[in-house]
């Protein structure tokens, strides 16, 4: 249904844009082990994105009546047609900022996929069942690094705190509800239902890291409605440039 497709687009775009951001680190990470680790996470996110987008694409038609593909969605939509949250669009910054973003998104995705395994939509349930295991690792990776950076050196602690501050304004948007969820019922997971577990995990981790949960005003958000931060346009210009230079080509 179009509602299911819209929901799959949202989840798929989160993964795609995050993978695009993380892919930058491959060949630039602080140590080779992190080139590998961040590469793995990027690959996992891209994998989830491909599953969700392929599922969504089947609901959309090309001009000739055939079904769209994941690539039609990834390369040929305009900025306002993307449905990701603004969190995943935010710049990588330094390693601490990337880790802060990873912490928030992976804790969120873990809770989300955990529940989405029970979706009344079997395709979404299957994608989530596979994804949740991988995201469990992403969450662990981010958590370990938050501890290392927060409790490592004065410099790393300062950076970790800054990274969290830069990330926090984009957190609330993850839990915004809209009427799509009323229509989807048991097929989807209401974002608000994830809040309690999310907060519990984050508070416990930050407590262990001897950090305070930042209290900062939220950014207005709106990614799910196609209202994006100023960063997304640049990201898409780069991601889509080659595909768009060769309309109709296959690769």
């Amino acid at each position, binding site marked *: 249904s179009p509602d299911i497709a819209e929901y799959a687009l949202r989840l798929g775009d989160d993964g795609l844009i995050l993978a695009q951001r993380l892919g930058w680190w491959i*060949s630039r990470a602080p*140590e080779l082990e992190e080139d590998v680790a961040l590469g793995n996470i990027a690959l996992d996110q891209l994998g989830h994105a491909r599953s969700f987008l392929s599922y969504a694409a089947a609901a959309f038609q090309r001009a000739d009546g055939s079904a769209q593909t994941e690539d039609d969605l990834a390369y040929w939509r305009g900025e306002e047609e993307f449905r990701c949250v603004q969190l995943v669009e935010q710049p990588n910054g330094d390693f601490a900022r990337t880790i802060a973003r990873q912490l928030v998104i992976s804790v969120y995705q873990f809770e989300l996929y955990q529940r989405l395994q029970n979706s009344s939509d079997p395709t979404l349930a299957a994608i989530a069942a596979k994804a949740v295991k991988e995201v469990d690792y992403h969450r662990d990776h981010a958590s370990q690094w938050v501890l290392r950076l927060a409790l490592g050196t004065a410099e790393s602690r300062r950076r970790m705190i800054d990274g969290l501050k830069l990330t926090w304004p984009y957190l609330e948007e993850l839990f915004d509800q809209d009427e799509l969820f009323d229509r989807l019922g048991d097929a989807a997971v209401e974002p608000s239902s994830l809040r309690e577990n999310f907060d519990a995990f984050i508070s416990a981790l930050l407590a262990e890291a001897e950090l305070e949960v930042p209290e900062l005003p939220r950014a207005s958000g709106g990614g799910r409605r196609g209202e994006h931060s100023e960063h997304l346009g640049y990201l898409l210009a780069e*991601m889509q440039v080659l*595909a768009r230079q060769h309309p109709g080509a296959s690769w």
Partner: protein
Amino acid sequence: IAGLAAFEAILAEDSRIEPRDWMPEAYRKTLVRQISQHAHSEIIGMQPEANWISRAPSLKRKAILMAKVQDEAGHGLYLYSAAETLGTPRTKLTEDLIAGKARYSSIFNYPTRSWADVGAIGWLVDGAAICNQVPLCRASYGPYGRAMVRICKEESFHQRQGFEILLELSQGTPAQKQMAQDAVNRWYAPALMMFGPPDDDSPNSKQSMAWNIKRFSNDELRQRFVGMMVEQVKVLGLTLPDDQIRFDEETGKWQHGSLDWNEFKEVLAGRGACNSQRLERRREAHQDGAWVREAAAAYALREQRVEVA
């Protein structure tokens, strides 16, 4: 028996030297140099391909490319570990690299100007690397030989992916086919030069062969490689930019046109398109990451203390 005699006995029966075995200093030095150069090449070699991760033209290709570049980081890790068994730590090797004191394969100083270059690197550069490396799986130094087994498996996977990229392009639009041909034209000669200078200009080869590190001469490997490419390029529907390639019935070997060793030496001397860029990028990543590595070390120490207490 021990010492040199034992070492020579192991070589004589074409068996493996292991880290705790006695070995001549020159053997150790040669290996450290060769293994670390190889490791550095994997690491620097990530850059030209990483250049297209963000712009890969389909999600499938993006995933394959990410995985490939990530594999190269893994190869670097195996190889640095092998070098460490010879007593030289990774930190030292990394410092030499970013100080510009260590070598890496000159081929990575060429730029990847188009998506097709990703295909050409996979097909030609990884192809040449495999020809070089398959014999190294039998290298006399155990940790090196075993690392090469693992690496070769993944490399042949990469080569097939590169071939597929070029095949898809050559069967695509005229612009795509042109892109593919252009990339093959640019990468062909540098790939051939990856086997090193002609045999009569390769002074160290003989000792390496005596030590069972090297198994075939540069020219032998190069000819074998040309023979393979000649067949594969037909399947691609492309051409190699060398009209002098022919099979010499008498010697049973493939001949190719002469190579511009002058250019090779220019790039080796630092005057390639990207020498400065590649080193700078590695240096920057290393320096930008220093505070992270320090934090991880400090945290590990702290955890140790907690465990002890």
